[in-house]
């Protein structure tokens, strides 16, 4: 694979630019996309760099088409990806559903903006429900929620591998702040870190004779019989559940003796990290738990953190009204820890918001 970064290098750039570089470093072949703020610069940077590295780009007529062309791209054996936000993410749920049905290893970068509808072009965490369980299916997908530019870079590289290794669509869930802000990160070629990139391979148009040289490549998104669909979905669910422990990621700090655990994801977890340290400095035993994968969710790990700390309360904070909270509740059903919430839809959460909230509920 071509090394595009060379010596690993420190850089100072926007999250969108970091995302485009990461796709290049991961060996992505082609992007299909349609413009929408705040992800536009992923397309801009990709189209600027793609010709230099023999990569492809197609701007389609809308997000439905962008989603379906990514589905086609991966079937032909190309590492294909897209990026979108807000109403574009809504439109892409139909092709993303197809990717779930046909187990297509596409990668989509979502930079959340305010909603519903056109909402704002700025920021939110309101696309959690949509990105984890959107579509008319069972959420057979993998969602990484990043919090820094370094993670955008790292998880895009990892995301392509997860997609092609396990054959589930992968989502990198960022937001407008991460898209537009500038901060340092270190870029690298995966091989230089000992990361082996999974090879892409065609899923259709294969050689040889079916039944003799190879089995059938059965990519299906419609079935004649209810029982047929039932059988397939049940099998996929079992595979997903079995793979989940290998895929699930989380971050946890200060939970051993915590009276209250802050549960946040994405960019809000940066404020939570600062808040927990400030609270500890004031003698308040706060803990920090952050799901990095929202699908599959680190259910066992959060239950274990609650158990070992004996925490009386969780504080779930998000730039949305209860989208993370609903995920957490369904995953830790049966726990008796009291759940407090800080919901600030469409606006940022800073450490003082969290500190004040913790003090008001303890």
């Amino acid at each position: 694979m071509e090394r595009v970064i060379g010596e690993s290098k420190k850089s100072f750039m926007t999250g969108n630019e970091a995302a485009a570089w990461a796709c290049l470093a991961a060996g992505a072949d082609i992007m299909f996309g349609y413009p929408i703020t705040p992800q536009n610069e992923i397309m801009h940077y990709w189209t600027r760099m793609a010709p230099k590295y023999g990569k492809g780009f197609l701007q389609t007529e809308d997000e439905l088409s962008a989603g379906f062309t990514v589905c086609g791209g991966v079937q032909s054996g190309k590492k294909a990806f897209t990026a979108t936000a807000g109403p574009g993410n809504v439109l892409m749920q139909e092709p993303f559903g197809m990717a779930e049905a046909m187990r297509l290893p596409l990668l989509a970068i979502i930079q959340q903006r305010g909603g519903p509808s056109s909402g704002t072009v700025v920021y939110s965490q309101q696309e959690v429900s949509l990105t984890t369980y959107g579509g008319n299916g069972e959420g057979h997908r993998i969602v990484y929620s990043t919090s820094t530019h370094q993670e955008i870079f790292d998880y895009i590289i990892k995301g392509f591998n997860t997609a092609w290794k396990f054959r589930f669509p992968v989502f990198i869930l960022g937001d407008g702040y991460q898209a537009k802000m500038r901060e340092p990160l270190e870029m690298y070629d995966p091989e230089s870190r000992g990361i082996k990139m999974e090879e892409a391979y065609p899923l259709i148009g294969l050689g040889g004779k079916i039944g003799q040289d190879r089995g059938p490549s059965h990519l299906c998104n419609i079935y004649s019989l209810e029982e047929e669909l039932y059988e397939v979905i049940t099998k996929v669910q079992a595979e997903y559940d079995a793979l989940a422990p290998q895929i699930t990621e989380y971050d946890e700090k200060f939970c051993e003796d915590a009276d209250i655990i802050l549960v946040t994801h994405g960019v809000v977890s940066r404020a939570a990290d600062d808040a927990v340290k400030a609270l500890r400095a004031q003698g308040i035993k706060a803990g920090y738990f952050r799901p990095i994968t929202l699908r599959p969710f680190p259910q066992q790990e959060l239950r274990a953190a609650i158990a070992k700390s004996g925490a009386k309360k969780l504080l779930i904070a998000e730039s949305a009204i209860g989208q993370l909270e609903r995920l957490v509740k369904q995953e830790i059903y049966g726990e008796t820890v009291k759940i407090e919430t800080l919901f600030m839809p469409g606006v940022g959460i800073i450490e003082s918001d969290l500190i004040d909230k913790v003090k008001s509920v303890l």
Partner: protein
Amino acid sequence: MALVRIALAGEGGQGVQSIAEILAEAAYNENQQALYIPNFGLEQRGGVSIAFLQFSDKRIGAPKFQKADIVIALSERAVARTISYSGAETLYVYDSSFKVEAEELPQQAKQIIALPAIDTANNELHPRVFNIIIMGAVIGLSNVVSFEAAKAALEHKLGYKFEKDPKLRELNFKALEIGREMAEKSLKEGVAINA
């Protein structure tokens, strides 16, 4: 360096976002942690544009903030727009040419400073380097980056223009220096207010 939070606000076209980006990059080049985020809502299409900057020697948390250590308002409208970012510990800076009444200025601030940046740019230098004077003033007020790093970052950003017209380099560096001196002088002469 402990965390320093700066909000720069001005009209579209004043070059607020450009100098914010240059300052953040200069800090990064000096091995500091820096985070810069523009506001990019619909108001940027003909409204007050704000740049949120943070500098620190440690990892920086949330990208935006409620109270800044330094607020610089570069237009009369920007004064009204930035009052909420001024708190008891804030150094609040505006241009001395603005026609603003005392009650229109923030009621909460550690110190309020009026700088003659617009007049200086128009009369002594060139209107186009107004933003560079402000960039110099940020350094004079906060030392978030060294003067040398700021010059290097300017060179990096505008070098291609300087090559075509070396007088531009001189003009920009002079504006940077004047801005710094202006700010340092104001800090010394300024009277702390008890908000």
